[in-house]
């Protein structure tokens, strides 16, 4: 039994807050770390202790494993939770923690290593009998030349993916050999800057595929369970935007099969703690292993909402060396949950990131709503970090009920100071294809528009015209007033002048 009484949270934003809350609710002390840009961040305000790491850029702050370990040592932390991103999938960091006698709340370094290198992962699970997407077989750092020669054998369209990858960073889609060199460069460049590793590999592009992932949870006693699937096909530039559980295309038979395969994949690297096996599912419901994320996922709340299991608390339980609090057969699916990622980016301006100070917020609240947010009124959104500022999660008895609830929540949500992609989510919730569950990973980019049907279009346009006119009118009226006031003033002065003359 490892003692977990004081946890250092090696992350920022909503996930750091999420973890701190779980710890607080378990009576565990928390230590936050922060960059110069985050002195006012919620995770700093909510933690029991908080220590500065360095300047805003991640490389000088949240990626400084050395400083973080230092702080953990000095403060007597007995565990570290890495969240997602940053150091979450760095086996060297997990190693150092272990070396320092600090429990890393996550899998063993060897599992991270095995799954962290996406090519090695492909090979490992393939050998364990898990179906994988056809692509580069031989492991190792491949040069552009190698890749350009392999590409035709795999066939186009294909994907360039970062070996150290995740979150679509350093990922590029290639339709022909001609455009491949330029795309290899930009992919390596992005991978380099995101993971400090520009190595990439190739994978056949499965068209019309859905992205469906299975949540895995495993303790140190060999118990491995899966917590059903998450549907994550609503993506843009390989960034997930909306996730839900269960998936509208899933049935218990397929769920059981994919769950079993996912468990097998996890076991193939002797996995412990929470992890996720990502699959592609094609039109014929064949599924292929994509990669394993050896950490908590951004979208974990949808699983929590339908299973009733708190994944972060379960992670800590496992880190303490205890057995899972449930058995596979206890895992239920109660209703339906949907998550919308609220990003500081303007869907009406090419999804450009939007930065600035949040001047006003009004959160959706009430039954069946959960908001995991890292920001608040007065907080400054800087360009240094991920644009995701909050996650809006709703629960409903059915998928339809959840969509209706999400609509009202999105309509209630107010954020002033940065533009957000809430309008994108609103359009999606109104889209017939989304409501019908008919979409794949290319839906957003290829078949989705933010246009509404003509009728509402016109009636709302009329309202918009009236509102714009009233605002314009008021602003001109205001300036007019000022002029009048000034006139009155001068006339007063005239009057005073006259008065003076009279009394000379």
């Amino acid at each position, binding site marked *: 039994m490892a003692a977990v009484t004081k946890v250092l949270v090696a992350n920022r934003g909503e996930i750091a807050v999420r973890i701190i809350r779980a710890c607080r609710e378990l009576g565990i002390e928390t230590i936050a770390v922060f960059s110069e840009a985050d002195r006012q961040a919620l995770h700093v305000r909510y933690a029991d202790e908080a220590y500065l790491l360095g300047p805003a850029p991640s490389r000088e702050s949240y990626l400084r494993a050395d400083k973080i370990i230092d702080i953990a040592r000095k403060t007597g932390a007995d565990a570290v939770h890495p969240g997602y991103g940053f150091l979450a999938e760095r086996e060297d960091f997990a190693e150092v923690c272990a070396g320092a006698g600090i429990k890393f709340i996550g899998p063993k370094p060897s599992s991270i290593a095995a799954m962290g290198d996406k090519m090695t992962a492909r090979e490992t699970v393939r050998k364990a009998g898990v179906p994988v997407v056809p692509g580069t077989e031989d492991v190792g750092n491949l040069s552009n030349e190698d890749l350009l020669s392999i590409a035709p054998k795999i066939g186009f369209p294909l994907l360039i993916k970062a070996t150290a990858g995740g979150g679509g960073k350093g990922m590029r889609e290639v339709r022909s050999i001609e455009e491949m060199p330029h795309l290899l460069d930009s992919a390596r460049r992005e991978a380099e800057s995101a993971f400090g590793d520009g190595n990439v590999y190739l994978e056949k592009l499965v068209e019309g595929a859905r992205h469906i992932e299975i949540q895995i949870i495993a303790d140190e006693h060999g118990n491995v369970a899966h917590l059903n699937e998450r549907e994550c096909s609503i993506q843009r530039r390989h960034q997930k935007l909306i996730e839900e559980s269960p998936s509208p295309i899933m049935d218990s038979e397929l769920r059981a099969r994919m769950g079993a395969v996912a468990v097998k994949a996890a076991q193939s690297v002797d996995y412990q703690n929470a992890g996720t096996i990502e699959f592609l599912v094609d039109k014929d419901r064949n599924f292929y292993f994509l990669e394993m994320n050896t950490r908590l996922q951004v979208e974990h709340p949808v699983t929590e909402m339908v299973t009733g299991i708190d994944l972060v608390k379960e992670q800590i339980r496992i880190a303490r060396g205890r057995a899972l609090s449930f058995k596979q057969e206890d895992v239920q699916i109660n209703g339906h949950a949907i998550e919308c990622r609220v990003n500081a980016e303007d869907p009406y301006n090419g999804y450009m990131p939007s930065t600035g100070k949040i001047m006003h917020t009004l959160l959706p609240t009430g039954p069946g709503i959960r908001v995991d947010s890292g920001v608040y009124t007065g907080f400054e959104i800087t*360009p240094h970090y991920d644009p995701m500022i909050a996650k809006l999660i709703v629960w409903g008895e059915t998928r339809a009920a959840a969509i209706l609830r999400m609509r009202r929540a999105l309509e209630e949500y107010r954020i002033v100071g940065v533009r957000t992609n809430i309008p994108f989510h609103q359009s999606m919730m109104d889209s017939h294809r989304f409501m019908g569950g008919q979409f794949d990973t290319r839906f957003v980019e290829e078949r989705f528009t933010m246009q509404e049907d003509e009728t509402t279009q016109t009636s709302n346009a009329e309202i*918009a015209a009236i509102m714009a*006119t009233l605002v314009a009118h008021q602003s001109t009226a205001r300036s007019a007033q000022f002029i009048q006031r000034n006139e009155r003033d001068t006339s007063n002065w005239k009057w005073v002048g006259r008065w003076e003359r009279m009394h000379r």
Partner: protein
Amino acid sequence: MKYITTIGDKEYTVEVIDERHVSINGRVMTVDFAPVSNQPVYSLLIDGKSHEAYIYPGEENWEVLLRGRLYPAQVEDEREKRLKTAAGGGVAESGEFHLRAPMPGLVVAVPVKEGQPIKKGDVLLILESMKMQNELKSPKDGTVQRIRVKPGETVEQKATLLSLV
């Protein structure tokens, strides 16, 4: 006071009759219009119907974000508008284009050279912000006239990055 308000290809004649009444294309309506929390968020009760929208001042229009849909609205005093139309309206388009940074960030690459001819849609510059690499493309054909930044530089929002003629 009468205004011509244009959204997309539609023109609306909106008259602000008094505090409580407006007419749109002749139809008179009762309104109760108020900003919320002193923010660019406005609540409108119009003949009892309750609407709420963000209304931001744009370059030379108003951006109305209503029920998740954006309506860029041009509001012009009717007289003004008439004069303009009389004058044949519209300023001559300058051939020059200045690429400005849409957000603060780090210049990752400038894949073009000064004097290089450019086609509409060509990538002019790659800007990294919020860990995303954003390719800034050319809105027109032209020639790169002046490049003001180099890779590795961090730039503020709206900073001019390069110019096209």
